[in-house]
């Protein structure tokens, strides 16, 4: 980050999560307006990017649960100076990881056969629905992570503190941090 010459850039990514961490991000409310001039947002779940950009800070929500996530997170890691595991699914696997005690075929059957009155199709892994990995991984099981922000979801204050610290080139403070 070079605060003198240009604004730091930020990306937020949504992998195997419920989008709750992003909702909590929006809970920064008017503080978003204060932050907006300080950063350049290069990618978010609402941005239609083909290729993940080079960024200073990336927040990753969600576990690495399928082939697409895996490919995506590897690219993201290469192009992000600072990578933050954002919320419990990214940090521990959390709800997304609850399937890990079961086999992938058992999970697929449960969702697409047992609980469905009409069976229209089972994702094969060759279609638009990406193939599930053997287990949903916390992000740091797959790529190096620089900082962690636990919480399901992390609250607005914690997100704000982390962003302010990172934008000022500091390691995020652990004051008031919780685990789980």
């Amino acid at each position, binding site marked *: 980050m070079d605060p003198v010459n240009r604004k730091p850039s930020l990306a937020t990514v949504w992998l195997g999560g419920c989008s709750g961490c992003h909702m909590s991000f929006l809970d920064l409310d008017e503080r978003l307006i204060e932050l907006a001039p300080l950063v350049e947002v290069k990618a978010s779940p609402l941005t239609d990017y083909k290729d993940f950009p080079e960024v200073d800070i990336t927040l990753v929500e969600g576990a690495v649960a399928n082939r697409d996530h895996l490919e995506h997170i590897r690219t993201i890691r290469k192009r992000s100076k600072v990578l933050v595991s954002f919320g419990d699914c990214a940090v521990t696997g959390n709800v997304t*990881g609850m399937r*890990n005690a079961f086999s992938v075929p058992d999970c697929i059957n449960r969702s697409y056969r047992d609980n469905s009155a009409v069976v229209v199709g089972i994702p094969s892994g060759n279609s638009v629905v990406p193939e599930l990995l053997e287990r949903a991984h916390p992000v740091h099981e797959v790529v190096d992570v620089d900082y962690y922000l636990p919480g399901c979801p992390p609250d607005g204050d914690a997100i704000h503190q982390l962003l302010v610290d990172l934008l000022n080139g500091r390691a995020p403070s652990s004051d008031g941090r919780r685990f*789980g």
Partner: protein
Amino acid sequence: MSVVTLEIDGKVCTGVSGETVFDVAWNNGVKIPRLCHIGGLPNIGACRLCLVEVEGQKKLLPACITPVQEGMVVRTWSEKLIAHRRLIVELLFAERNHVCSVCVVNRNCELQDLAVELGLDHIRLRYQFPKLVADTSHERFGLDHNRCVLCTRCVRVCDEVEGAHTWDVSRRGALSQIIADLGEPWGESDTCTSCGKCVQVCPTGALFEKGKAVSEMRKDRGFLKYIVTAREKGQWIR
């Protein structure tokens, strides 16, 4: 009963012979982390979170089962102790399925508190994701093995305080599991009096009251102190 003087973290402390390093430290304001220990139940020295350094001893000693001695010099916090304690807590998180976001004691849990106290923000070990069940056969309570840390507080309170000895531990190592009687569903136990003591002493959300939603369960340990004071001093006071 003689007075013992010792040094804990550079502070001169006094206790009484027969007391443990853990109790004397806490009485003098030095809070040593713990999990299996709970005041009022016999100590088993199982979780090793209370390990301390004692001058002149090569091995680390569990404070909750180490009696104080005259002139002892004890250290309760050091880089090495913190590293060991962190690893223990990480092992506990990785061993079973702790999904805090859907847990009855979320934000009210001794395991979470330990993680925060030790500065953990992620678990470096690979999660095991064992396939475990919850026993909800009891009318008022439940036992979710996913959240059990095998501290055996429940076993001890049921045996030593309630006198029912419903709980015990079956199997070994990572397969260890708390069982009611000889492995019956809790609701069918002949010995359980439904007193609820085990639920209140359990440090995690493993034992819980039915009907409580996420984060709603608060454990009440006051009863244990009440009973112990009554037994030891004959005073029925809160």
